[in-house]
């Protein structure tokens, strides 16, 4: 029952992990000169952690990272990741921003950042958010992988209770899903932009979440966010707020983009996709494509800025 081509894949539907992994294989097979699939590690339950690499060649080029699905129940994010992958392939020659970006940079896209959690949402509990790691002395399972990074780890805005949805884990990078990205980012050493995609409160955020101290690049990141949100809103009128994590939502320690920013990746952002006040994590599948389309416009603004402002 799996599609034989990415042209017959239904982008306006939610898919299982197997279907998404099959989609990746098809995309690689159809575009061998542009797309390759890297395995950057294994999850707690030994599932492969795949990253799609879009590259026109060269070695260790500067790179633009996008990840979706670190919180497994946020299904619109994995679905958007699939759509982004196809969009990159379709537009890499004709779209001016994408074409120029790929002339000098690579794009890395991790569509299912938390595959154990995602599989669990399809088989056992649709509302599962965390990883699936076990903790001695507790009956509760999983760590919030967006509290497990080595950036203010264990501070305010994360829980030390393994039963909490925001449990930070026993130590920073305890989750193989997080450690794999940490190792990849460090070994690559030339990632210039890092965008981590969540749902659902219509926000575009930049660091920090663990401290009220503004980042040195606050003004620039704020201006990019303003432009990106304007582009996003221009398509369907979806209203986004933007700002630093701590001033816009709440204090959250051990978060992804705080760590990437502290690693020197200046253009670190996180999205919270639609919707506000109707469906939450249960966004109907007919909204996948509009959500992905509008987000893509914002991503393009960040891509263009990254390209125009090398550092």
């Amino acid at each position: 029952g799996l599609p034989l081509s990415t042209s017959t894949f239904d982008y306006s539907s939610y898919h299982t992990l197997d279907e998404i992994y099959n989609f990746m294989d098809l995309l690689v097979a159809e575009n061998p000169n542009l797309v390759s699939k890297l395995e950057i590690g294994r999850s707690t339950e030994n599932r492969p952690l795949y990253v799609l690499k879009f590259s026109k060649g060269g070695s260790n080029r500067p790179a633009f990272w996008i990840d979706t699905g670190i919180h497994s129940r946020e299904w619109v994010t994995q679905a958007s990741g699939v759509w982004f992958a196809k969009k990159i392939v379709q537009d890499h020659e004709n779209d001016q921003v994408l074409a120029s970006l790929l002339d000098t940079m690579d794009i890395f896209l991790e569509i299912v950042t938390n595959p154990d959690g995602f599989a669990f949402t399809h088989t056992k509990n649709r509302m599962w958010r965390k990883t699936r790691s076990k903790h001695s002395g507790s009956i509760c399972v999983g760590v919030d992988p967006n509290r497990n990074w080595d950036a203010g780890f264990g501070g305010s805005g994360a829980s030390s209770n393994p039963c909490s949805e925001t449990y930070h884990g026993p130590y920073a990078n305890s989750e193989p899903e997080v450690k794999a990205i940490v190792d990849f980012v460090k070994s690559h050493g030339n990632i210039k932009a890092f965008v981590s995609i969540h749902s659902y409160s219509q926000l575009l955020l930049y660091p920090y979440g663990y401290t009220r101290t503004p980042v040195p690049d606050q003004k620039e990141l704020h201006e990019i966010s303003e432009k990106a949100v304007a582009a996003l809103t221009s398509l369907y009128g979806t209203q986004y707020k933007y700002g630093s994590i701590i001033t816009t939502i709440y204090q959250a320690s051990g978060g992804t983009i705080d760590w990437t920013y502290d690693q020197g990746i200046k253009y670190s952002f996180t999205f919270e996709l639609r919707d506000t006040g109707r469906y939450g994590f249960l966004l109907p599948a007919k909204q996948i494509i509009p959500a992905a389309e509008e987000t893509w416009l914002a991503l393009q603004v960040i891509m263009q800025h990254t390209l125009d402002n090398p550092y």
Partner: protein
Amino acid sequence: TETFVGHQVLRIIPTSDEELQKVQELQDLEDLQLDFWLEPRGLGLPVDVRVPFPSLQPLKVHLEANGISYSIMIEDVQELLEQEQTEMLRSSRR
């Protein structure tokens, strides 16, 4: 597979510090097994919470007793999940 029959998602918008405090305190009531989709963030900002069926009545009574207004964002979580499954099935058949 866990089912969510009768679970509702309530949207609460705290309008005073007192209300915000009360909503924050709900996070500590483990017996109610509340699942905060959107955690309390500040005045005027929505808090979305999935409430298991057995906790609905006590929670609503608690909110009303404290004068905290709420709206029902999702009437029945399971109903939405079943629609989601039906759509996935339809897509894979197609």
